[in-house]
């Protein structure tokens, strides 16, 4: 990974612009859209119902949300590859760009910032300035320290990346809903599952 990341960064810098334009075009012209608030309200209903079902055991709610997301992720990747027809990623750096500029854009119409790379280049953060899941949400007092409201996203990323042979851990480290300064997700690549099969193959 680290060996080829140096020459990737140069080429990915050049493709940054085009990836954005490419995704904007898909969002604008090739994506059926629906009211974002309906999405927000539906997710809100799901989370608040889970909190009731699990009798406010927020750890269980977190893992359940992640499991729901995982189910979505493994199906979503197919849809994503079909719509974008993107070639496989050469590096994890490039994967991070595709996730933020393309995947988030064409599904949720937001573009989280990528940053906070680990020195080994196997872990990065996504900073969600906008999060359509959490509009109009205020966590109840008892949930503020425990609940990761948007945890479904972790599952989605994990599930989707796994389908392209990347075994990752995804977790939230901060959330504005908890009073943090920003909303930050960490994505850590554990291993490429089958070395011989290139990641991102369609």
């Amino acid at each position, binding site marked *: 990974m680290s060996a080829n990341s140096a020459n990737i960064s140069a080429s990915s810098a050049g493709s940054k612009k085009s990836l954005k334009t490419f995704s*904007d075009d898909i*969002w*604008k012209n090739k*994506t*059926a*859209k*629906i*009211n*974002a*608030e*309906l*999405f*927000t*309200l*539906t*997710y*809100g*209903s*799901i989370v*608040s*119902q889970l909190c009731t*079902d699990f009798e406010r055991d927020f750890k269980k709610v977190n893992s359940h949300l992640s499991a*729901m997301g995982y*189910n*979505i992720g493994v*199906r*979503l990747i197919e*849809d994503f590859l079909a719509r974008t027809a993107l070639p496989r990623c050469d590096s994890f750096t490039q994967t991070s760009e595709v996730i933020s500029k393309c995947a988030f854009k*064409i*599904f*949720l*119409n*937001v573009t989280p910032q990528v940053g906070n790379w680990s020195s080994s280049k196997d872990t990065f953060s996504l900073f969600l300035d*906008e999060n*359509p899941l959490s*509009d*109009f*949400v*205020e966590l109840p007092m008892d949930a503020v320290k425990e609940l990761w409201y948007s945890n479904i996203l972790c599952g989605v990323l994990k599930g989707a990346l796994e389908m392209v042979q990347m075994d990752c851990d995804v977790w939230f480290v901060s959330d*504005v*809903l908890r*009073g943090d300064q920003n909303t930050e997700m960490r994505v850590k690549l554990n291993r490429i599952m089958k070395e011989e099969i290139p990641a991102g193959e369609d």
Partner: protein
Amino acid sequence: MSHKIINPSTSVPPANAAGSTGYDYTIGPQQTLPNSSAQSVASTLAGTRSVYHESLHPGAHGAHVSVAAYAFLFQEMVSQARNASKTVSEIELRLHRHGYHIGLRLLELLKFRSSVTPGSGRSFFHKSGGPAATAGDAVGGAGSAPSGAGAGGAGSIGTAQDESLSSSITTMKRRDLRLLEVLQFVHGPVWLYLFDRASDDLVKSSERENEYMIIDNTPSITRFISSTNVQCDFFVCGIIEGVLDLASFPCTVTAHSVPEDKFDRRVVFVIRFDQEVLEREALRF
């Protein structure tokens, strides 16, 4: 009266606690502090992110997400309901409950928003799904070219945060008092909000006095579900029931698959109002 005991309001806690903790119904109303310290409370709270700092303005957040994202979420909600239920009726109940949760909110939200006088202050009409359009670039409120510039200028002042819609409301939209008014609200604005179009028909049953039907030839939410289940329409039933219930038109709503000619997924939502609604209607109007 609620069964909880509300203490007499004279049992006020130490005055310095007032305003900093919010309303506690076991204590009763708290007095406003002298202006200076009340403002300091407000300023300490100002840094905290809160739902009250978000704008109800429809353009304040992203206007759209992809249908695919919604479909995935919806499918997962359905399978979650299936896994958590032992019987078919329990699945339906769960989906209904999700819809009801949304319906309650839509009544207040949509009515409140529709009170805003077009063209006054910030315009709030739907943006055309364009990329990265910020809340600041308002489109001419009344939709007429000459006033567009003025409205746009006004809209660019201030941020989306903390701006109340109330300031652009002269008269609040009327509450619906009659059965037909509230049904038209569901058939029109609610459907438009959810599905980008009005429902295909609104009819009164010829057999039963308290029965009305809303017809959707091409239901868009349930088309994401591959199976032939009608169950998922219970979600929409819940939304309708939530809206009507909160507006004080208690009823039960059921969904029936009634294919017709080229509409093989056509659904009829049957709304049966409680007797009290008809009695009130007969008495008042």
